């Protein structure tokens, strides 16, 4: 047996490696796709602290006005250029579904589910494997993962004054990553290798915020997430634990110019708190996310004023790629279509996302369409 073991070790000379992600944005536990409504995305995220549809600042729930539902669909058309070749992928996301209910004249309750980190990707690698007997075979290896860590939020907002509201929220982070790997050799004398795995996540945190309108033309908001614990599981076995990233953000909207709304926002995310959740050397980094935007009134359509939005956003994505920070810059344009005399609304945004790092020869670009549907009976 010792001879055999030795033989195995000695003979295990051929080891090939191949892996996952394959994009700048999909590193680590995935891409932070949620948190902003279509309206906010059209403005570069600059109204995140003052937007009732973006589950960021719980104090903004008051601005729902009446009970309603909101959901959002964000397909992303991504292209990645590396080593002279280009991948084109399409990822369909539903990053937000939320609703709000007024409980009395000054208290609003809201529920939402947002995509915290989307880990949906697939890589396909083709290569030659060479073996001890002198033979070789072409192979194709596929890694894929599907799923996300989602943020389920229950929030309460209370209007202290007509111009001031506060809010608190409890967050449950939950979700799954369904992973699969396969290797298929072109030589039929090889069996197909397949392996699948499902990871589950569970965590919690709390957040709070304030929304203040000191002037009729100025709205300010500030919010933060205190963080909590986050665990990963395979079946009923706890694999790793870490902290939920802390977050603090602030922003404002200025409407002092007729027909024009200007907005700005900035937030800091403590993504590095998640480092304990990974098993490998994957590293999460803290970073700022900031954006500015402007909304103008366009000519009316069907008797309704159509707001047209422009935005710019810059942020550091949570996970490094090959030990290099990944930055994302978004240029966005959008508009909203009021329906039912303004009670409901359809928002549409188009984002051009450019992602880069210090890695040479790697460029990632994406067109992200965003469709938001607000329904208030």
């Amino acid at each position: 047996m010792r001879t055999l073991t030795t033989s195995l070790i000695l003979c295990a000379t051929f080891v090939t490696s191949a892996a996952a992600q394959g994009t700048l944005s999909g590193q680590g536990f995935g891409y932070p796709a949620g948190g902003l409504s279509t309206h906010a995305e059209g403005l570069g995220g600059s109204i995140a602290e003052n937007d009732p549809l973006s589950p960021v600042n719980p104090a903004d729930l008051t601005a729902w006005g009446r009970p309603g539902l909101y959901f959002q669909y964000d397909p992303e058309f991504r292209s990645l250029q590396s080593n002279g070749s280009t991948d084109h992928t399409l990822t369909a996301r539903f990053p937000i579904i939320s609703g709000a209910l007024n409980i009395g004249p000054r208290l609003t309750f809201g529920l939402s589910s947002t995509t915290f980190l989307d880990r949906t990707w697939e890589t396909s690698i083709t290569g030659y494997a060479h073996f001890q007997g002198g033979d070789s075979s072409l192979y194709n290896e596929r890694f894929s993962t599907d799923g996300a860590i989602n943020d389920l939020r229950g929030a309460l907002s209370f209007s202290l004054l007509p111009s001031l509201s506060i809010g608190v929220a409890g967050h449950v982070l939950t979700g799954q990553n369904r992973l699969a790997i396969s290797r298929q050799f072109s030589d039929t004398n090889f069996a197909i290798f397949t392996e699948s795995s499902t990871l589950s996540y569970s965590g919690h945190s709390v957040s709070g915020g304030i929304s203040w309108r000191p002037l009729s033309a100025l709205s300010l908001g500030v919010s933060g997430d205190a963080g909590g614990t986050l665990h990963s599981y395979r079946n009923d076995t706890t694999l790793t634990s870490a902290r939920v990233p802390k977050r603090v953000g602030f922003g404002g909207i200025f409407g002092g110019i007729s027909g024009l709304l200007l907005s700005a926002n900035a937030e800091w995310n403590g993504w590095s708190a998640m480092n304990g959740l990974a098993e490998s050397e994957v590293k999460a980094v803290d970073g700022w996310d900031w954006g500015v935007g402007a909304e103008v009134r366009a000519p009316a359509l069907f008797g309704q004023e159509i707001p047209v939005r422009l935005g710019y956003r810059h942020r550091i994505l949570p996970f490094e790629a090959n030990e290099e920070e990944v930055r994302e810059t978004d240029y966005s344009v959008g508009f909203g279509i009021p329906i039912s005399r303004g009670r409901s609304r359809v928002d549409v945004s188009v984002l051009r996302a450019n992602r880069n790092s210090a890695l040479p020869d790697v460029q990632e670009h994406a067109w992200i369409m965003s469709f938001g549907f607000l329904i208030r009976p």
Partner: protein
Amino acid sequence: MIVRRASHRLLPFIGLALFALAGCEENLAGGAACPNLCPGQHLEVHDTILVAGEVIDTSAIVNGLPPLGTETQLLVARYGDAAGDSIVSGAVMRYDSLQRNFPRADTTKPFVPVVSVSSASLQFSSTPDTTMIRDSLRFEVIDVDANVPDLDTATIHQLFITRPALGTLNVKKDSVSTLHTLPIDTAFVRQHVTTNTRIRLGLRVYSYGHDTTGNVQVGIIPITSTNSLTGTQTGPSLQYMGHAAAPATDSLTFTNYSVSKSSGGPEFRYLANYQLVLKGSPPPPAGVLPVGGLPSSRVYLRFNLPSELIDSSTTIVRATLLLHQLGDQTFTDVDSASLTPRVVVASPAVTDISKAVLLLADPTTVPLPSVRMNPSETRTDSLVLVSKSSSIVTLWRAEGPLIMQRAIVLQSSLEGRDARRFLLYSDAAADTALRPHLHLTYIPRSGFGLP
């Protein structure tokens, strides 16, 4: 006009809606940036070649297959070499119950017995290999009945050699057909019919050329089968023209078939016709395993793969048994034959290897591919045990070591039909390079998931 203008204004929205619908079908496949952007997950592929002694704990030769009485073809053959008859086999036809009365239309009347026989013959179908016959062949039939137990073939063997022929049939090479009628001594048949005793006939064959004897092999279909629609039977039959005492004109051709209708188990209990090897293949050289031959042999190989490979989550994606073949120069037939690995489904409780080699999975259940080769060639052969279409390791893992022996049997496609055999170097071969090897390629469970 208003409607027309409105429809123009809607065009961008329709375009966006179509764009959104196009986004419903995901296309996630990427990989252009790997391995730079694909860190963390490693799929390790290990490749190793092991000497069989490290992974095969038992190898055994089992002779005499298929078991007596279960043959699907009775090989009646004679292969000559410079030293004379090198390999000889015959067939035994068993008629334990003979028709000795005329059928009666009126059952109230007594039977009318057969008292005399005017002609008798043995009729059988065969698949002769005419390429081996030189000028002609001769069948001989012998009385091989003896008051011995069924499995005492040594006595029958002796009778085959010592007793004179009851009848002969000479056939020229260009006249060989598939149906043969071999006349038999009528006195012999009459005696057995009238005394109500069984008849057991031996069949042997010779091949003649203008200068010397040659090779001949004839495969005889041993099993009596009955047409379910017409009720007619086919198979080796003993036929005779029987006559009654009075009236003297009563006569009838009686056709007797062997009672056996089934190829039974390894135990000889079905009154079957069987094949008897009178002179078998010579023993193989030292360190060599024979597969096939006459009597046919199979090779049993039991594996003892490391549990970290077979009982763990490791996936064996390739397992190829590399065998080195020693060319058998006894025959120079250019035709190739198949060497087939068969899966043993016997449990470990079956410790008798001669029984384990019979408890095999149907080839369609675990279709391990055969290798076609010429037994007279010296070459290296690869038997694929794990492939895209089948995996014996998956079966072994699923069944577990307590349910199924982790063994295979090497079987020749010529088994029982041809005297040629594969000679494969065993783990006892003097040259270690000629010993069997197992080429394994495996992938340990990657444990992937968390980045």
